[in-house]
């Protein structure tokens, strides 16, 4: 089944139009939004300023932030991986080699997501202690990393292992969600396809459902670690 | 400045002395007070119960009574807020809508009038007591007046004002709500009174007789001796030896 279908649309939408007291609308001329407070947030902040904001935000979401330069990235990751025997799952992402991480990865039990292996990938991810991905855009305001998931950048990697490690190029920092969504909006307008899963992750999974007490680590990762690469 | 007093139905029947204090305070500030004899009730009991037509009858009488006034001042944030709602009662009647708008625009709650129109904050009052203050919902949320009572109380000599926890929670009056939903209202006023008791204040001050009637009813029932006073009674008070 690759072709989509739509059922009962016309009666449904005609009813809406009728209740609204007009004909069905087939186009909308939208006026510019009057209230746009989002652009003033951290306006004019440098990457250094945004990094400071980001680090502050991470305090509130139980997430440690480390800073490193590209040359020491290997060491920074080693420092985070305290369980040396623990297996690691990573996406098929050329950045792992272009940032010189291959040597480090070779020393560990690493599974690189490979779509040709099918369900085996999920089994490996389920057993992995660490999942590592790069952040595509990073939202300073809320301590949020962003993933665009696809067949290589699989959803499971940041979800199944107990520990999630995000590698964050400092240049990926933007003030807040507005910059991300504007970018996606522009791309949609230009006819590009949105990734099937745009995932904004802010720290480890958590819940306050039991007597409003915060429990960190529910169905997703129990721990999240961010490594900011200051010269990328 | 000419000011017409709208005493409110509750004020006229239960708290005439508050009306007297209002008159004396405003006269001392140089206002010329009149009391339009045709005034009745703002109409809120009917309006809030869903009886818009019956509320409109009250509103028309109020508009007739006050449309020649320069300012209308009332010792109730809730009733003032209701008068500000009047235009909405006459959406289909342009003539009455316009008349309603004029009255609504010149109606003020007492403390709001003193602070924002007369631009006075120190009225020379003094009152030796520990007090806490009940911020009523309609005054703060519908009328949007959160500051005026505190600005005035700050200048009352001898008065120590203790913050009231959960001050933002409704006291449970809500007009007909208190009799229609008695059990819920009873729980609300009980919690309010418990918070008042926790402050260890000698008096509870408020700017709405309706809330005060409700809270006092519960305070008296629980038995801890806390006096309940309208802000006008405080602002019109002078301790002996004070000017």
């Amino acid at each position, binding site marked *: 089944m*690759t072709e*989509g*279908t739509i*059922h009962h*649309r016309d*009666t449904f939408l005609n009813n*809406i139009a009728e*209740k609204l007291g007009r004909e*069905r*609308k*087939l186009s909308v001329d939208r006026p510019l*939004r009057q*209230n*746009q407070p989002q652009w003033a*947030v951290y306006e004019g902040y440098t990457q250094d300023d945004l990094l400071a904001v980001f680090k502050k*935000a991470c305090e509130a979401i139980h997430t440690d932030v480390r800073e490193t330069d590209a040359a020491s990235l290997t060491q920074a990751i080693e420092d985070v991986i305290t369980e040396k025997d623990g297996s690691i799952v990573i996406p098929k992402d050329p950045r792992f080699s272009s940032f010189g991480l291959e040597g480090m990865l070779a020393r560990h039990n690493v599974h690189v997501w490979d779509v040709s292996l099918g369900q085996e*990938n999920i089994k490996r991810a*389920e057993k992995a202690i660490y999942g590592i991905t790069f952040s595509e855009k990073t939202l300073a305001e*809320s301590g949020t990393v962003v993933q665009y*998931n*696809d067949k290589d950048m699989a*959803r*499971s990697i940041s979800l199944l292992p107990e520990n999630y490690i995000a590698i964050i190029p400092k240049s990926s920092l933007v003030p807040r*969600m*507005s910059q*991300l969504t504007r970018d996606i909006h522009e791309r949609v307008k230009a006819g590009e396809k*949105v990734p*099937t*899963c*745009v995932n*904004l992750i802010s720290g480890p*999974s958590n*819940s306050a459902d039991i007597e*409003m007490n915060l429990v960190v680590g529910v*169905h*997703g990762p129990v721990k999240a670690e961010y490594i900011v690469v200051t010269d990328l | 400045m000419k000011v017409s007093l709208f005493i409110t139905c509750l004020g006229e029947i*239960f708290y*005439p*002395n508050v009306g*007297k204090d209002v008159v004396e305070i405003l*006269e001392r500030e140089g206002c010329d007070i009149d009391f339009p*004899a045709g*005034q009745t*009730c703002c109409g809120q009991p*009917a309006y*809030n*119960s*869903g009886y818009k037509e019956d509320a409109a*009858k*009250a509103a028309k009488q109020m508009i007739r009574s006050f449309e020649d006034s320069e300012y209308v001042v009332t010792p109730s944030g809730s009733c003032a807020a209701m008068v500000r709602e009047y235009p909405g009662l006459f959406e289909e009647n342009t003539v009455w809508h316009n008349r309603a708008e004029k009255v609504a625009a010149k109606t003020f709650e007492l403390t709001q009038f003193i602070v924002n129109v007369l631009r006075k904050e120190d009225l020379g009052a003094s009152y030796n007591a520990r007090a806490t203050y009940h911020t009523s919902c309609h005054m703060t949320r519908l009328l949007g007046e959160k500051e005026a009572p505190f600005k005035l109380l700050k200048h009352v000599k001898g008065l120590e004002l203790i913050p009231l926890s959960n001050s933002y*929670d409704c006291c*449970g009056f*809500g007009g007909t*709500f208190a009799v229609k939903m008695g*059990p819920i*209202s*009873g*729980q*609300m006023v009980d919690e309010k009174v418990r918070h008042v008791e926790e402050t260890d204040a000698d008096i509870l001050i408020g700017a709405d007789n309706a809330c005060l009637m409700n809270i006092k009813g519960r305070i*008296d029932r629980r038995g801890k001796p806390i006096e309940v006073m309208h802000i006008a009674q405080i602002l019109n008070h002078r301790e002996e030896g004070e000017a």
Partner: protein
Amino acid sequence: MGMKIGNHPFFDRVDEGINNSFMRHAVSSAQDRLRGKKLNVTVNDQDLGDWEEWRSAGEEIRRHTLENLDFYLGQLSDAVAERGGHVFFAETAEEANKYIQEVVGRKKAKNVVKAKSMVTEEIGLNEALEEAGCHVHETDLAEYILQIDDHDRPSHIVVPSLHKNKEQIRDAFRDKLGYEKTDKPEELAGFAREQLRQVFLDAEVGITGCNFAVAESGSVALVTNEGNANMVTTFPETQISVMGMERIVPTWEDLDVLVNLLCRSSVGQKMTSYITALTPGVKEDSVDGPKDFHLVIVDGGRSNALGTEFQSALHCIRCGACVNVCPIYRHIGGHAYGSIYQGPIGAVLSPILGGYEEYGELPYASSLCAACTETCPVKIPLHEHLIKHRQNYVAGQGRSKASERIAMKAFGIGAGSPSLFQMAAKSAPFVTKPFVKDDKIPKGLGPLKQWTETRDFPAPSKSNFRKWFEGHTKKGEAND
């Protein structure tokens, strides 16, 4: 089970709530805690700018969207289908359930995992799925707790198990699942994690609600903290998302504003741990993520509000902020409302969706203190809607009491006539005299009976303001 909770009359439910001291403690401490958390990330967040401007932005987007709802739903469905997803428009709960039953039937699904969703609760989807032979696994911690505890009903739209304490949760886990650890929230949550991990991996179908659908790209955005919604939409081969028809934004830029308002208003977070926007991609050859994507768009009575004075009730983004400040909810809890939608928004929405016959009393369960209106992040005038419901109710759509109608008629006549009003005012001290004791009425009759159950009523004053004022004015003139 649908939208309705319980069969007891309203006042019995209220009494039940008032007498449930654990629940009341849980609710009031949750309200007090959330108030501070919310203030920190809204009006007191200096970096965010003016919170009022954010609220205006939210209102503006919601108003525009609802005014053009047919267009945006059309655009959404086109975008979903273009990416290979299926869209089903359901006028009623039955139609929605039937379609979903057919989908799970075709898949021969035995295990269905669900992320938290109020609309699926509203349409009674779990029962429909069980009827179709499926095991339904709720995976949101709160929903999981309710399901384990004999299908208890939600009492809060954001934290459905708010009325339960950790001891009750431990006991339910122990009795039903053989749980052996303590009542520590960490251990209880850890147990749910263990229990559900394999369930996620084995389920054939994952069902979610929808916080916001994005019309321009055919995406469904989910706002969660636990990671369960991600699980539900990552491993099962089929994803079914169910949305109330108003839960839509035109563009990603609008999504930004509303997600911001939702996270901050509901739980006092800048962002929840996961904001996940899912777009069908059945042509994409990935290992995780669904191969089959269904979006079910439900009317379920919502269109009753379109074009009426209640249209802005559909602006609601289900943040629960109004519930969290409501002093009525504080004392009676969620179940007393008899609807899965409780608090102020519940009292506005339930009669729209379910009629006055069933929910006509709810609009009266408010002191009209307007705390809800003040806090609503998209500026729905909730307390005004409650008054409008009351107007409809007394105008014949509900069952108002004849005695009340007569009393209000009399009020109108009395307050419309100064002479009658003064007569009533003057006679008040005499009429009430037999009940007065020490200037108080400790035990009232008729409408005053409920008042005097818990508090005294004052005796009308014997002094007459009008007379005093007349004398006062004369004295003033004499002094001139």
